[in-house]
Structure formats: C-alpha cells, structure tokens
C-alpha cells in the first residue's frame, strides 16, 4: 500500500531502548519519529502537540502507565493507532492495552521487519498481533472484552478453507496440510495466502484469534 508519510510517537521508560527504536524507525523510508517520551505524562503532552498517526508505547511506565495513556489518547484523538510494546510475561497487561483501545501489540524483541509491518497495518486501520503470540494469549484475547474490528462485509468461508484454517492453527506445515487433504503443495499455499487476505490476518496469531472468535476451532484444540 502506498503511504507518503507516517508520523510516529514512541514511549518507553528505558532510554536505551527508546534510542534504538527511534533510530530503527527513522531509518525506514516514509516513517518519521516526531516525538519520544519516557513516561505516560510526557507521552500525552507530546501526542496533544504533534497529533501523530501512530503511537508505539511501553505498557509499564512511571507517572502514568501505557494503559491510562492509551485511554486518554484515544479519548482526545480517536483516529490515532496505538500499538503496545511488551516484554515477556505481561499477557494480562497486553489484554488491558487492547481493551483500552490499542490496535495491536509487539514484543520488544520483535524483528525490525515485524515492527515495520505492525506500524503499516495499524496505519491501515487493521489489528496487529505479534507473531510470537502464544496460544494461551490468543485464547485470553478472545475471552476478553477486546473486539477485533468487525469485517465488512462479513467473511464467508467454505468447508475446505475452514479445514485448512484448523490445520494452520495446529501449526501444520503446508506440506503436511497438502498430504492430509490430498492437494498439491502449491494449491495449499494458494489457499493460505487467500485465507490470510480474506480474514485480514498478518500471521498465525491473527488466524488463531479469528478462528477462536468465530468458533472454527475450540480452546481445547490449541491449549
């Protein structure tokens, strides 16, 4: 998708990480880091001043935390896409961020390409779930008060597509799926691409969340 410029404000109480992230994002063509904050209070001030497209924010921060900031940012500027940055072992906080209105989340050690991908997805108003999402987190997300964007028009999937989705959620490889349902590897690959496009998922995490939400798979199948 063509975009001319995406303005980003980042927040993290770890200055070293903030430096590294800022450098990486600024180095990407079309991205501008227009503000950096080391706590939620600063974040709010900068966002009110700069009105960016995207906010990438740590969850645990002093003064005002990421969850409170997200709520306040979205109350004042509902169009801003907020992405949560999480360390490991913070599943509940990720859920709270999503429930507060964040459109997606990333683990801080995500690959730079994934960070870029997430920014672009959220800029396009799509949810983004980190590729390292555990099944447990996926289940917690589905059970929470967070509702992924409703697709317009509603998605229709045929039985074959549903079967393939189930197998994707079981982490079967394309070859394994092909063998199981007697199709060629290329055909299955085609299905995978089509399915991701249809449900607007960027990775398996997105597929799992969609499948759980729409009862194509059950929790017991993945936990």
């Amino acid at each position, binding site marked *: 998708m063509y975009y001319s410029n995406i303005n980003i404000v980042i927040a*993290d109480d*770890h200055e*070293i*990480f903030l*430096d*590294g*992230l800022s*450098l*990486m994002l600024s*180095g990407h063509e079309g991205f501008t880091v227009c503000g950096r904050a080391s706590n939620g209070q600063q974040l709010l001030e900068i966002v009110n001043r700069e009105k960016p497209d995207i906010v990438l924010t740590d969850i645990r921060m002093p003064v005002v935390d990421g969850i409170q900031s997200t709520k306040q940012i979205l109350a004042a500027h509902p169009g801003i896409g907020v992405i949560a940055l999480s*360390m*490991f*072992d*913070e*599943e*509940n*906080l990720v859920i709270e961020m999503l429930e507060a209105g964040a459109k997606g989340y990333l683990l*801080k*050690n995500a*690959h*730079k390409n994934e960070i870029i991908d997430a920014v672009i997805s959220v800029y396009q108003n799509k949810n983004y779930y980190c590729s390292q999402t*555990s*099944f*447990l987190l996926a289940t*917690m997300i589905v059970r929470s008060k967070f509702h992924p964007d409703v697709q317009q028009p509603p998605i229709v999937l045929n039985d074959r597509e549903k079967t393939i989705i189930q197998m994707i959620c079981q982490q079967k490889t394309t070859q394994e799926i092909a063998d199981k349902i007697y199709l060629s590897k290329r055909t299955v690959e085609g299905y995978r691409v089509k399915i991701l496009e249809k449900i607007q998922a960027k990775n398996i995490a997105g597929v799992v969340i969609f499948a759980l939400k729409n009862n194509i798979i059950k929790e017991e199948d993945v*936990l």
Partner: protein
Amino acid sequence: MIQEQERKRIANDLHDSLGPLLSTVKLYLHGIAVKTDTDKQSLTKASGYIDETIKNLREISYNLLPGSLMRNDLVEVVREYIARIASHHVLKISFEAAPEAVIEKKIEIHLFRVIQEIVHNTIKHSGASALKLLITWQSDALFLISEDDGKGFDLNGTRTASEGLGLKSIENRCEMINATLKIITAKSKGCKIIIKVPN
C-alpha cells in the same frame, strides 16, 4: 517470605534491565547494512542467539516469580504454567478449579509453589503419564488435590535425596499456610496428595 521477596527482586531485575537491553541490541544489529552472504548469515545467527537468550531469561524469570500472579488470579496462572510445561514434557496434566473457590491472595503464591513442586516431582520421579490437579472448596476449607498414575512409592521407606527434598518443600509450604497434607501412595499405585487449607 524473605526468599519470595528475593525472588521477586531478581525476577524484576531480569525483566526490567536485561530484557530491554537485549531487545535494543537486536534493533541495532538489524540496523547494520550487510552485503555479503556470510555477513547476512552471521547477522541472522546473532539475532537468533539473542532471541534464545531472551527466551531463557523469560523462563528463569517465570520460574522465580510468575509475574501474572500479582495481577491475576491463581487459576489463570496455573493454566499458563501447565501450558508451558506441556510444550516440553510428555506428561499430560489436567487442571480443574471449582469456580466458587475463594483463594486468599496471600496464600496464592504458596499454593502455586506447591503445584510447581508437585508437577516437578511427578515429572522427575513418578514415571507417570498423566497428572490430575484439582482445586475445590467446601464451607470450611479449600482443597488442592493431585493424583498421578505413576509408579508410586513406599511412604515409610527410604527416598532418594531429591525425592525427599521435594516432599519436604511441600510440607514446609503447607506449614506456612496452616494447611494439612495427606499423601496416599504405594508402589505401582500412583500418588495422591490432598492438601486442606482451612478458611
């Protein structure tokens, strides 16, 4: 309790200082322009090792103190713990908790440690293929019950040093929360543990 505070401190340090530092290293690594295939390979390897380090950090931190125990309740934390164990052990663990069970915050960490110990012992010593964990509640007490289908042991016989240690640890925890401990086991009859925590 002092031990728990120590663990909490270490877990927080790991989480707050080492984690972000490693993530930052990775960001800088990927900012380096690499041209040759050999360099690209080195970069990929380096990045992979950082991920591995972070993963290990996470495990250590988690084993020290499950962060979510502070923010969420025991049942969720146990489910998560079991899911992690399932990903690298063959033992099939089932866990049920009565929804009406009320678990006081201050005993949650001890119950969790007991469950960890039971799971650890079962994997290490029992040769069991399945372990059932149950938390139920009656008006006068909370019950934690575990049952495995392993080889059991002679309650009155001698145990290996580590078996003894595991059980001692459970005994200590029970003492700390004024709980009674009952172990039902015999050779090749599996092992059932019943812990009663009075209200």
